[in-house]
């Protein structure tokens, strides 16, 4: 399977008055064509900045300081804004978190849809209108002929997100980035939107990056997962390995802190003690080490490389090193000690 996206050693930093905020600190991952990759992590872990970096939408004072983002072989970090507009909304699209504020209140839904369509194709206004109707039908908006003339304020939150999804898929993008697309919606609508995305993925044959802090959402639709913390990747795995056999203490902590719904059993949630690292002055070692129950001396000094646990799983934790003490459930592997 060929790679549609390869991110290599990406670093994105915000140069604020108070100092440098290192939001993303050297992450590498790739996405197979047709795959659905989940990026999970808590607020401030760098997942949104990663997606904005791919889109070339990191706002001042932020900047990609290092690394490559190869989209079908083209390094997006080398392109200027004008060249990026050919990719954005066309080859790569993005769906944002809050549908209430992400759609322009001053123009009709049809106007905004037609605009995206016409920006990347030679269709005239009538053809674009037809295409817009078709898109609204695809995303499940009832009575598109009259709804297309509506302004966003006449749409509910779920419908706005559907309209924004319609804009995002208007030009059959090869890569669709969804940044917490369901966070601002209520639970029943969340399920519908996820269902819609899964549905559309097959129709338009695109690859998806789904960013969320909700492991439940990840388990429902992704096939691979990246766990981010403090701007770094803690664990990369396929969905089954991650849930069955997490190989990073942070991933374990995350899984333990999900409320389980087993009738009759009273189980306490286990929180992860402490708070996320200050990205202005991140720990020199593993970002999770100050909160990690298994932290060793080396963890505080040096971040672990990604140890390859199996063909489908990698984790950045020193516990996988052959000299590390035995901890139940952690696999020792041969790794290069760079």
């Amino acid at each position, binding site marked *: 399977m060929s790679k549609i996206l390869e991110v290599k050693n990406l670093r994105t930093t915000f140069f604020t008055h108070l100092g440098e905020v290192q939001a993303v600190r050297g992450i590498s991952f790739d996405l197979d064509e047709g795959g659905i990759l989940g990026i999970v992590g808590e607020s401030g872990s760098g997942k949104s900045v990663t997606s904005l970096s791919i889109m070339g939408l990191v706002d001042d004072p932020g900047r990609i300081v290092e690394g490559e983002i190869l989209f079908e072989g083209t390094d997006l970090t080398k392109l200027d804004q*004008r060249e990026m507009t050919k990719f954005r909304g066309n080859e790569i699209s993005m769906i*944002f978190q809050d549908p209430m*504020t992400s*759609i*322009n*209140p001053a123009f009709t839904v049809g106007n905004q849809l037609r605009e*995206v369509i016409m*920006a990347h194709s030679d269709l005239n206004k009538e053809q674009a209108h037809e295409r817009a109707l078709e898109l609204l039908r695809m995303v499940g908006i009832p009575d598109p002929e009259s709804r297309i003339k509506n302004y966003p304020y006449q749409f509910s939150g779920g419908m706005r997100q559907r309209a924004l999804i319609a*804009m995002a898929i208007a030009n059959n993008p090869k890569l669709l980035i969804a940044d917490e697309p369901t966070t601002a919606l209520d639970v029943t609508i969340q399920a519908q939107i996820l269902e819609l995305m899964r549905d559309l993925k097959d129709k338009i044959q695109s690859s998806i990056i789904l960013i969320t802090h909700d492991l439940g959402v990840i388990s429902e639709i992704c096939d691979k997962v990246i766990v981010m913390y403090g701007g770094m990747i803690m664990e990369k795995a396929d969905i089954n390995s991650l849930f069955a056999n997490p190989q990073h203490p942070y991933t374990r902590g995350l899984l333990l802190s999900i409320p389980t719904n087993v009738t009759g059993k009273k189980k306490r949630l286990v929180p992860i003690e402490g708070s996320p690292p200050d990205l202005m002055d991140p720990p020199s070692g593993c970002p999770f080490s100050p909160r990690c129950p298994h932290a060793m001396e080396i963890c505080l000094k040096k971040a672990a490389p990604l140890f390859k646990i199996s063909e489908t799983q990698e984790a950045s934790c020193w516990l996988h090193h052959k000299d590390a003490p035995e901890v139940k459930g952690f696999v020792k592997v041969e790794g290069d000690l760079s």
Partner: protein
Amino acid sequence: MIGYYVKRLLSALFTLFLIATLTFFMMRAIPGGPFTREKPLPPQIIAQLNAKYNLDDPVIVQYFSYMKGIATFDLGPSFKELGLTVNDLIKQGFPGSMKVGFVAVMFILLFGIPLGIISALKQNKAIDHVVMVMATIGVTVPSFVVATLYIYFISSKISWIPITGLSNPLAYIGPAIALSGYSLSYVARLTRSSMLEVLRQDYVRTARANGLSEWRVIGKHALKNALIPVITYVGPMIAAILTGSFVVERIFSINGIGRYFVESVNNRDYTVIIGMTVFYSALYIVMVLLVDIGYSLIDPRIKLGKRSGD
């Protein structure tokens, strides 16, 4: 919709009625009268003048006869400009004020708004600082200074720019600059801050993420939303600018109505004071209505004549 405009018209008429009434009685409450001089006129002459203009009637009688006149668009005779009615003064002066005012308004819109946008886009860069310093100067330096500097440095040096009057199109430049300085600067600042606010909105990011050109993102998606506070200011401002300025019309010897706003008060020229006030108010009310219509065009959530929630 028509019902809405009828309602607006009725409320406008009522407002004008109140303004005329208040101005009438407030002017009468000020000591002195149109024929008070430093060297008093003989009492017989004052009595005769008062009789001629019916100023010897009880105030309430004067009020009703004046209101009757206003109802038929007759603003009465001027006490100072002999032989002329207030209608004549407006007819003679307003075109001059309006023409200069129109050019000034064009300056404000064509320079103020783009400068504000550029400033916002280049926030904290050199050009932003330059524009904002100029805007501060524009707000603080009074129009008579601008007018005098213009005459001294430009129109008196360049022979083909007339210094006074409105004899050729170039003559409008000076008075329009002096008249627009404050508002132009204010509009630039207003546009800048409103634009900065809008550029941070999520839908601007969505427009960028959809691959729209920067021109469309700024000129369409951001600008339309950023204009609301600007329109709020510009509407009433147009009414003020079109009715001229005492200072600017004096310096550039323009035959306008700006001076009557000042002179009529000094002269206790009752009819001119009320006439000017009502005229300005009517223009103001029209502009406010246009602003409301502008809102409804820009923000689809604002529907004229409907309660919110309908």
